[in-house]
């Protein structure tokens, strides 16, 4: 048996990873200042459109799925009954 990886057992590493992720978030926003945006739909010209749309889409997806679960969820052996 090979030895186990335990890198994410250390909360410090998880924290570092999260920090790196937040830095990346800022970077992709800053990057928008330096690109040519003369094409596409008008909404794309708003600063941070993709960031906002991505975030909202995601939250909507999860909460809509929660609602959907109320309608469609059954026990695992539903079809065997």
């Amino acid at each position, binding site marked *: 048996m090979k030895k186990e990886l335990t890198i994410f057992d250390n909360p410090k590493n998880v924290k570092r990873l999260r920090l790196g992720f937040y830095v990346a978030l800022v970077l992709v926003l800053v990057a928008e200042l330096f690109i*040519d945006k003369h094409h596409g739909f008008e909404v794309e010209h708003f600063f941070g459109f993709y960031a906002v749309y*991505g975030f909202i*889409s995601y939250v909507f*997806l*999860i909460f809509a*799925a929660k609602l*959907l*679960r109320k309608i469609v969820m059954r026990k695992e052996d539903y079809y065997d009954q």
Partner: protein
Amino acid sequence: MINNLLPPVVIFILGAVLIPFLKGKLKASYMLLIPIVTFAILVNLPQGNIWTFEFWGYNLIMGRVDKLSMLFSYVFTIMAFLGILFALKVKDNLQHVAGIVYAGSTLGVVLAGDFFTLYFFWEIMAVSSTFLILASRTKESKEAGFRYILFHIIGGLLLLAGIMLYIQKTGSIQFDYIGLDGLASYLIFAGIALNAAAFPLHAWLPDAYPNGTPTSTVFLSAFTTKSAVYLLIRTFPGAGLLIWIGAIMVSLPIFYAVLENDIRRVLSYSLMNQVGFMLVGIGIGTELAINGAVAHAFCHIIYKALLFMAAGSVLQMTGKIKCTDLGGLYKTMPLTCFFCIIGAASISAFPFFSGFISKSMIISASAHEKMFMIWLVLQFASTGVVDHAGIKVPFFMFFGHDSGIRAKEPPLNMLLAMGIAAFLCVALGVFYQPLYNLLPYAADYVPYTGAHVVGQLQLLLFGAFAFTLLILSGYYIPEIRSKNLDADWTYRKLGRLAYKIADKGLNYINKISEIFVIGIVKIIAGFFKDMAAKLALFISVNFWLMLGYSGKRLEIKKLRLYDDIMNGTLPIGIGAAVATGFILLVFLLT
């Protein structure tokens, strides 16, 4: 010279026959050689119609060679190689034979230049893939396999009916662009769309695919739906209906993917979402959109197979596949985890991974045509992919809560198959030009513009940011052991209920509908089924007599075989009967 070479489908199917007789290393190398030889033949094919035969006055074309069919043939052959490599250590000959026949018949479908050849291999595809589902040999897989073949027989009959009408109208069995116009075309469309798991004919896919074996589902994920995508590109490009079907397909399944607990069912819903992107592309129908659909099919086959391989590895090594049972596997399966993340990045269309260079073509095509709503839906769906395939699949298997499971990495052949697929995902994302050169239309598309890359990164990273916040705050949707109702409910529960009601109170209506609808279908189906049974009995009885069976033992054997066929536990009987029925129909109609 070409006529000296065998068509790919013949190599695969004849090749499969020998597999049960081989053993060990010889068997392994022999199986791997089948797609390799096929690939060598494919790259040397000249354009145009080859492998043409005369059959009952019809001109059959087993090799329609153009850019479109070639690209699909390449990726199916590569996929067959990956699938065979991944399943190399499997001890079950049924899976090897069924998998290779299945992959081969798909090549037959893609290269077919006439309806006759198409339909023939279409049916073999349905039958052989059923065995891949049955191969799990569990109660669930048996039932799901049975529903699967029933669904595909219905699809096959729709297609067949459309084909007959179409041939009657045009007088030719050759096909190319059809377009939605008239009953025949709608029947053909429905038959093909069913195989693409197009809404609302989709429920068979998430029902059946998660019930395959760890290795057989990898095969299943690639061929049926994408051969249907190929046919839709061939026959119905620019059909506006496909945009709407596609828009529903990219969005509806992602909600289910969020809810699902079974990783392979999550991936099945995600597969439908990806095919949805392709259907939107086909529906838009411009050169850019069609190129996008083709390129996306190519990339998708590889990263989706990679994800199913990662899930299959986890299932094989741990015996578990539900989110609630898994977690923390990165500790002992780091390579599988790494490959899975590459697959996840590819399907999420991260820049420098394969999904990015193909999906962005379809989204750009919708923007070029000023389809704002569709464009919004596609962008929304892209974020959805990040959740279920990009984050959920790797997170709940390899990270998340520590399940305490300490499974080893899968065997070398499985790691190798995943490694090659992962390599291709990155290679396609970085060096996309060779793929673009193979697309049906000239592609001057530039995927890596500043606006594309930054926009996509914002969309993905801020989606992931939402995930981080939701999971830290405890608002993320919890994993629950459950069954989520989908359209299959209509025939699994409602069908039963309706039957009960009809049986008790509405006998009269029941009878009429039975006479007019079910009756006719029953007679036809029964006729073919019976014919297949009788034929099988005739051959088997002679065979058994030769082996010295007689009297009571022979009677028992006969009865058992007849029951097997009539109960549909022997789907090849039905499939072959449908194929036979088709030949008979052509014969009767001329």
